[in-house]
């Protein structure tokens, strides 16, 4: 903040856009003192959120999540693996988060974004510790074959709160997931049974007739907030994240239990009251997100 104090006087003569670029912090603080943000949101309000399921035809489950203009495309592909000897009745999940160069001006081809592996790790930690997925449901033949669910999330447009959007697209993709019907052949390999001759001639016994959908218990949802002085800004845009650096991400599950609380450093120290406020904001947001997910799912069933 080594900026001259003269900016206060300049601001009256300067165009808004120039002021925003030259003195971004002052620009934001002026808005914050009026309890409003530059995109006309109150401080605690998240951006409009939409979900679309089944966006990728070649995947077994997929979802497109949009929070404001942050866009995430998640797709799940199921492959077969031999389960480990320690857990013969469990399948596995591999989560990868990608930031291709199309998503943001700071990502260049050949140089992956620094944030991508960190978000990837956070997502797999969150999804595994929330207990949303029972890995036993991914088992096919005990000790011989189990599903490996490859979940790949692509960020198509990066405009802040990447983790929130990525987690939303991930849980939506899992709730859209339709596991293919397979059988075990003589060589001990798993083969697909095509949908058409389902029931017509069952010369081969499917091994997973019952288990086409995963039962998702306690779905995790998250909200990222920016702490700046005494203000708490929910669901920040990329511009807000670059100017005010202290972010807090709270993950709660659908019954409002804390899954994870994440504050990776940052210049603002979180007091207990700020932490409680963030959790309270997340609690509201979880309800919103749960509704959006439920509506999208029921919309799918009607079709």
């Amino acid at each position, binding site marked *: 903040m080594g900026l001259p104090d003269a900016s206060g006087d300049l601001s009256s003569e300067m165009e808004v856009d120039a002021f925003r670029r030259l003195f971004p912090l002052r620009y934001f603080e002026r808005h914050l003192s009026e309890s409003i943000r530059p995109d006309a949101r109150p401080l605690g309000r998240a951006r409009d959120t939409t979900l679309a399921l089944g966006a*990728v*035809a*070649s*995947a077994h489950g*997929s979802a497109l999540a949009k929070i404001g*203009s942050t*866009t995430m*495309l998640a*797709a799940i*592909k199921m*492959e*077969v*693996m*031999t*389960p*480990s000897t320690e857990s013969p009745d469990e399948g*596995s*999940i*591999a*989560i*990868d988060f*990608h930031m*291709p*160069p*199309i*998503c*943001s*001006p700071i990502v*260049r*081809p*050949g140089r992956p974004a620094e944030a991508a592996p960190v978000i990837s790790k956070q997502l*797999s*930690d969150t*999804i*595994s510790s929330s207990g949303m*997925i029972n*890995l036993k449901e991914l088992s096919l033949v005990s000790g011989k074959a189990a599903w*490996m669910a*490859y979940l*790949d999330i*692509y960020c*198509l*447009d*990066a*405009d802040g709160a990447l983790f929130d959007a990525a987690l939303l697209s991930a849980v939506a993709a899992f709730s859209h997931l339709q596991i*293919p019907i*397979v*059988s075990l*052949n003589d060589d001990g*390999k*798993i*083969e*697909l*049974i*095509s949908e058409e001759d389902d029931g017509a001639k069952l010369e*081969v016994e499917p091994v997973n007739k019952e288990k086409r959908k995963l039962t998702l218990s306690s779905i995790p949802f998250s909200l990222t907030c920016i702490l700046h002085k005494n203000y708490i800004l929910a669901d920040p845009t*990329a511009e807000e994240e670059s100017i005010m650096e202290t972010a807090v991400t709270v993950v709660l599950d659908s019954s409002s239990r804390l899954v994870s609380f994440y504050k990776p450093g940052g210049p603002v120290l979180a007091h207990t009251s700020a932490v409680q406020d963030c959790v309270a904001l997340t609690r509201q947001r979880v309800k919103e997100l749960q509704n959006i997910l439920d509506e999208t799912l029921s919309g799918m069933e009607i079709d």
Partner: protein
Amino acid sequence: MAAQGGAAPSTYTPTPTKKTQRSPFFSDSDVDWLRPDGRGFHQCRPAFFRTGAVNSAAGSAYAEFGNTKVIVSVFGPRESKKAMVYSDVGRLNCNVSYTTFANPARGLGSDNKEFSSMLHKALEGAIMLETFPKTTVDVFALVLESGGSDLPVVISCASLALADAGIMMYDLVAGVSVSCLGRNLIIDPILEEESFQDGSMMITCMPSRYEVTQLTITGEWSTAKLNEAMQLCLDACSKLDKIMRACLEEAASASQD
């Protein structure tokens, strides 16, 4: 913990129990075979374009041709990253990559070097590079789903994204490919048809100027077939151009309202 430590177990995609008993794709004597999606030989897939798909980019476009879905973002003109010598004309930098779920079998989601350079060659003739000296325009494409004829779709989509970014061009660039299957020419082939083709041709052109920016021919062709295919492509390009222009007009009128 879902995250497996160390080496990931090897996995495979389950294959169908029996090979789908599709009658041989076509035979030379048979002229009346149908294309898998029921199109006529000289009929393109319905094309859908939309500009402004990515807000954080200077310009962007999304294109969907059947199952082929691509997004192209344009950044710049901005400072050249590779410290190059002073240049009077701007630089164009292109990159095409695939998602891991683009193809039916899960891939690695890698960059496609060949397509990147083809995209560069198809576009550089259409862009007025002298309007942004010393700087670089980046054109990045991501193929979300590959359904055949990926490159022509990427090129058409990229020219729309450039227009959306306000980069000066002589004309839009439309790309169309034709596959030669035995005695038949089929336009805008899907993935399955591409795997059976004897030869393929791709033309990218600037339809209003009637100039070709790129022409690639692979495989086995006769001269008569080549001429016929070229005419087919050029006709399809001018039709595609109308759709692309309509998309730009729509975006422009929407922003005026």
